[in-house]
């Protein structure tokens, strides 16, 4: 059950133009930096990327947008990326904006074998167009469908060779659900540890969801909004 691969190149073995990818992270927090860099190098294109955000102009998924490798984005918030806005308004980039909670739940559903579920989010808005509406407990809900991906690419704090993962702080975000929803799930970790080092009571993503794992060479972990208070 040794799922360790040598690095992002080996982890992405089998990737093709036109595939659908899920990429974990919230803003630039908890994104799979090393694998994104490799996607740029591999020059795969026509990608559909499912990710809460689209990075910033010069980091995260912004790097793939710069190279026009993405055909379609499925996201909830893309406000930090000017290029994205330009590409979307000009029609170069297809965009499906969906509520953040529905995005998270749709990924989980994809991994959990639940093809569809009802949620109140988006009822009465653009998001509900073409979707079934049903009243539960007097409140209208819309039917949302599961999301899956050819590759799910997640970033964790630590992992072992079974693929068990733990995340740190708010870098967890979408990573655990996306890890569940990939036909092939790649995990890049800050630290690869020996089996048994992770307490089995405190595994966030059990290894069954992960196919390939590697320790990232370096993590820039860029901060978007550095907010601080002064000491004293």
């Amino acid at each position: 059950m040794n799922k360790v691969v040598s690095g992002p190149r080996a982890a992405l073995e089998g990737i093709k133009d036109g595939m659908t990818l899920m990429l974990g992270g919230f803003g630039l927090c908890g994104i799979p930096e090393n694998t994104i860099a490799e996607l740029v190098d591999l020059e795969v294109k026509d990608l559909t990327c499912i990710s809460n955000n689209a990075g910033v102009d010069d980091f995260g998924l912004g790097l793939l947008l710069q190279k026009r490798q993405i055909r379609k984005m499925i996201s909830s918030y893309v406000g930090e990326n000017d290029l994205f806005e330009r590409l979307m308004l000009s029609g170069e980039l297809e965009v499906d904006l969906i509520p953040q909670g529905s995005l998270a739940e749709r990924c989980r559903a994809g991994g959990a074998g639940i093809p569809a579920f009802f949620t109140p989010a988006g009822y009465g808005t653009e998001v509900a167009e073409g979707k079934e509406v049903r009243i539960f407990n007097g409140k209208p809900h819309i039917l949302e469908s599961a999301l899956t991906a050819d590759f799910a690419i997640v970033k964790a704090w630590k992992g072992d060779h079974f693929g068990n993962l733990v995340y740190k702080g708010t870098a967890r975000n979408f990573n655990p659900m996306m890890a569940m929803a990939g036909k092939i799930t790649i995990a890049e970790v800050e630290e690869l540890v020996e089996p048994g080092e992770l307490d089995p009571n405190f595994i966030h993503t059990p290894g069954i969801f992960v196919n390939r794992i590697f320790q990232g060479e370096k993590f820039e972990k860029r901060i978007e909004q550095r907010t601080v208070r002064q000491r004293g």
Partner: protein
Amino acid sequence: MLSKEQIAQRIAQELRDGYYVNLGIGIPTLVANYIPEGIEVEFQSENGILGMGPFPFDGDEDADLINAGKQTITARAGAAFFDSATSFAMIRGQHVQLTVLGAMEVADNGDIANWKIPGRMVKGMGGAMDLVASADNIIVAMMHTNKEGESKLLKTCTLPITGVQCVKRVVTNLAVLDITENGFKLIERAPGISVEEIVKATEGRLVVEGDIPEMKFA
């Protein structure tokens, strides 16, 4: 006319002991600075933390610890981190007692628009649609009028809406208003603001009954 800080301060008076609260970006964030004495509340941020603390001291920032506005934050003792599905389970499952968020427009039936200006601004709804569709208690914090002086409290939203008939209360730089079957109901005036000024600045149906008290600040 209230400053943004005063809007936040007035909204903070709505906090009750034991509340879990989700604060949106902008004015709502400031509410955390005015928690009334003697009560304890917990702040939830939808990117995956309960028990959000103040900004870190300079030099202590951690890229792995941010709020939904992507700002570096700290965690209080007793905090918990969780994934996005669990975070929205809290929100959708109505475990959060109060949601405060900003808006571009609010209609007098409680509709809210705060995510999109067609052909111009496409940032996305983020968690706003889940929040407004789920929360029992939604307060909107915003300016009463836009930069052109036009009312943001309307008969009908002109922008694509974020949620239908969901806002319960609006706190602006001019007034506190509740959403009722008959439209906005004026509850309080900002210090020094007359009822006439509020009527003039409100496009939607507005109910004014009896004497309208001025807001009080501790």
